[in-house]
């Protein structure tokens, strides 16, 4: 019956969000970008993953504290021949998930090139999270955690290791980036109202409703936190109710 559609908590049934963010997923071919994204959006490992042709789009809404954030995700091809295509998608991205393969040193060595590209082509406030993928293959490791961590610190990007196979830490990079972006908005360095920031607000009217019905959102975020037990990310610095909403 369509009328069910419209009951009191209909706003929770339909996908609403407070922010919309554009992310790009970049890195050498075969590092597992598509698998990482697939696990993030489908919660399962992507079998028989083929090289990505050009770019592919997917989206998912996540909760961070009381905020619902819709992520527009652009999975790019790592193969050199698609560079000219994929680079056009960096434009106006708010977040970049930079992926290397811990079992492939080459993919780590080339990170600087990827990062430089992203920094010049995406939005100036681009938040980058470095992901060392395939952490399940410890035996074949060619890049030490400490080394990557050092590189991340030197280049001012967030860092963690993940496995698209086991699902370990698969959500964390996306949430990490979202959190950093929200913090940037809060501190005023990023303005969602500006086109090209890679972030925009959700429906204004809904936002008004949401802010007045904090309780229902509180309960939602409560369940999210419970479910998010696997996510190794503590949402503690984020203070809700600040001027961004």
């Amino acid at each position, binding site marked *: 019956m369509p009328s069910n559609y419209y009951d009191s908590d209909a706003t929770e049934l339909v996908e609403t969000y407070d922010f919309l963010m554009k992310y790009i997923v970049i890195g050498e071919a075969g590092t597992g970008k598509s698998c990482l994204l697939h696990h993030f959006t489908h919660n399962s490992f992507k079998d028989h993953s083929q090289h990505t042709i050009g*770019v592919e789009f*997917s989206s998912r809404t996540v909760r961070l504290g009381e905020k619902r954030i819709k992520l527009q995700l*652009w999975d790019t091809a790592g193969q050199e021949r698609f560079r000219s295509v994929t680079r*056009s998608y960096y*434009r106006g991205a708010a977040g970049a998930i930079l992926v290397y393969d811990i079992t492939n040193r080459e993919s780590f060595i080339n990170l600087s090139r990827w990062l430089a590209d992203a920094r010049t082509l995406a939005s100036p406030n681009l938040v980058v999270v470095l992901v060392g993928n395939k952490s399940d293959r410890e035996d074949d490791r060619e890049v030490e955690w400490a080394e990557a961590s050092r590189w991340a610190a030197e280049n001012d990007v967030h860092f963690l290791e993940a496995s698209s196979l086991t699902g370990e830490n698969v959500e964390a990079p996306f949430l990490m980036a979202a959190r950093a972006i929200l913090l940037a908005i809060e501190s005023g360095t990023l303005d969602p109202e500006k086109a090209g920031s890679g972030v925009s607000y959700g429906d204004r009217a809904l936002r008004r409703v949401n802010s007045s019905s904090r309780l229902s959102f509180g309960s939602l975020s409560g369940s999210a936190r419970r479910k998010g037990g696997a996510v190794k990310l503590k949402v503690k610095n984020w203070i809700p109710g600040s001027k961004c909403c």
Partner: protein
Amino acid sequence: MASATSSPRRPSASAQSESSQSDRRTVSATQSRNPVSQRLSKVLGTNFDNEDTRQALRTLSDLYAIPRGKEVHIVVDDGDDELGQESFETPLPAPTIVLVESVPGESAARARKNLRRDMETQLAEGSRKFLQALGEVDAKLCELQINVAAMRSSCDEAETQLALTNESSKLLLERAGSLRDERQEVEDKKSIISLFLARFTLSEAEIDALTSREVPIGQRFFQAMDKTERIREDCRVLMAGEDGSTRAGLEIMASTSSHLEQGYEKILRYCSTEFRNLGRDSQLEVSPGIKEAILRLRKRPELLTEALTILSETRQATLLSSFIAALTRGGPSGYPRPIELHAHDPLRYVGDMLAWVHQAIAAEREFLESIFSLKSDGRMVGSVRNAPQSEEEDWMRELMDLAVGKLCVPLKLRVQQTVRSQESSIVSYKIANLLQFYLMTMRRTIGEQALLSSTLKEITDIAYRVFYDSIETQSLALARSRFDHDDPSLTPPHVILDHAQILREVMQVYQSSLLGDEDEDEINAGINQVLDIMIDPVVQMCITNSEEKAKLRPRWDGQVFILNCLCYLQGVLAAFDFTTQKQKDLQTILNKRAKVLTDEHRDSILRDAGLWEITEAIVHHAGEEPLSRIPAAQPADLQRSLKNFSAWLSGLEVVQSPRLSQLIIQKMHTRIHQDALARLAQTYRRICEEVKNPANRYEAAATLLGSERPFGQVHLLWQIFGLEEREREEESESEDDESDGDDSDGSGSGKEGSEE
């Protein structure tokens, strides 16, 4: 106050009197015989202390009571009064009596004196009063009797009346009963009707929700809509029954229909307003109200169409202005930079535009999916869609087509400009391939029929045409050019190297544009035109041009030059798998040219080896005359030839040919040279056979042959040449031709060429 029974220490009065009575009985027992004493004791024993006596005394006392009044002065103290109770002889309270006792006890004395009389008087008086009263009673009773009689008659009358009335009210009662039944019936009907009405009509509030502009679209409205729909559905079911359509049914249908339509109109108005006011934002979120409204409007396709038309108009305008803004202005703060800022970098410019459109399509699709309440299937935009074609899909496709279609004009204009202004054929080719890539992507995303797809097809075709035109112009210019006749070198000239370099780059671009899912025919088809344009005229020009030059410059080795050029081109092709067809074609030409050179080389070797004349003689020898009689084959000539041959065998030319060493492909040199040597060996064998043939009448043939190396031993010659012995020349030659066609020899040599 303690009661007598509850205080045992104080004997009650009655107990005391009992004990005194028993005392007296003891006395009387002693004198029981004496009647006087008995009487006396009886009198004495009489106890007046009982209620009757008291009552009698009180009566008396009342009778003689001293009346109390104002005018009467009674000087009696309370003590007297108490005493007076015992001395009941107080004078009668007759009004005539002087009431004041002058002497104490006076009235008592008087009372005692007059008691009898007084009593009698009193009695008489009482009796008289009694009689009088009874008389009155009698009279009243008589009256009562009369009344009773009257009453009886009235009662009888009333009873008759009552009976009558009863009779008549029975009818009334019956009527009342039936009326009551009727009323019940009516009431039942009424409740049924009101239930019916509640079920089959809309309340004021509901009508209001449907029709009034005051009530916003929301839960209340949608519930009213639901009810209206349900009423109509129920009504239709009822009317489909045996009774057929009733007036009520028709009326209900009529009124609900009007309300329903007003409701739908209201939804339409709502959607129209909402759609018109959709933010100029390219990132959209859809309110639940809109989703519900669109779900509802699906039952009114014409209204849905109207609403979606408005939506489409807004989206078209919004997308177009966003696109123009992205192109010319960039973000408000300049970030990201306007796309046109990179117009000087054609690939980036075109790529950025197309990527913008692609991303807009993704966002638009998400927006439309939420408008139509479609759950995103997690399918990625850009990947192949094989979803069943639902009505919503059709709508979405059309809306996407329209929204994105508006971008075609500015897009086409800019891409065309960029494409046309390219001078480098490589860049043109890259742009064309990029366009082709997006054409494929868009076809998968918004369908082949979409305006954007056909526009992209158009621009892609233009880009390819521009590219083909440019390489054609280039090839033709090359074909028209003449080699420098003063240049003695036999290696491919610069014009060809440059041309080949462009070809190589084009093929590299093509290779990287392959997605890996094409079959071989598709792959070849994609490049064949390029190869035809870039190879054929050049090959042709190479051959004719060289022959021309060779004529003017006989010392310049045109054959070697042609082979060098062709091998070089072959080498360029051989680096790419998709050129096999062209390689084959080229190889055929190459083989032909190689054969010419091989023939020339065989002859020249034969000459150099000194066997030319004798061979000629053998070949042309016919008829009866023995060979030994033919000039040039006579034993002395033969002897000389064999001697020359022997000398040649110790020379360098056996290993390599100075002429062939000009070939850039060493392998080709070897092959041609070995061919010539093989033929030489076969020729030598033939000479031996002919010499040994008795018909040719050579004397001491064996000695003749054995005088010079290789002493008539053919196999020795093969050994010297380092070759496998071949049987017959003709056969091996034809074999050679065949194998050359698909032999790896050519491409093998080509590969060597590419490495140089």
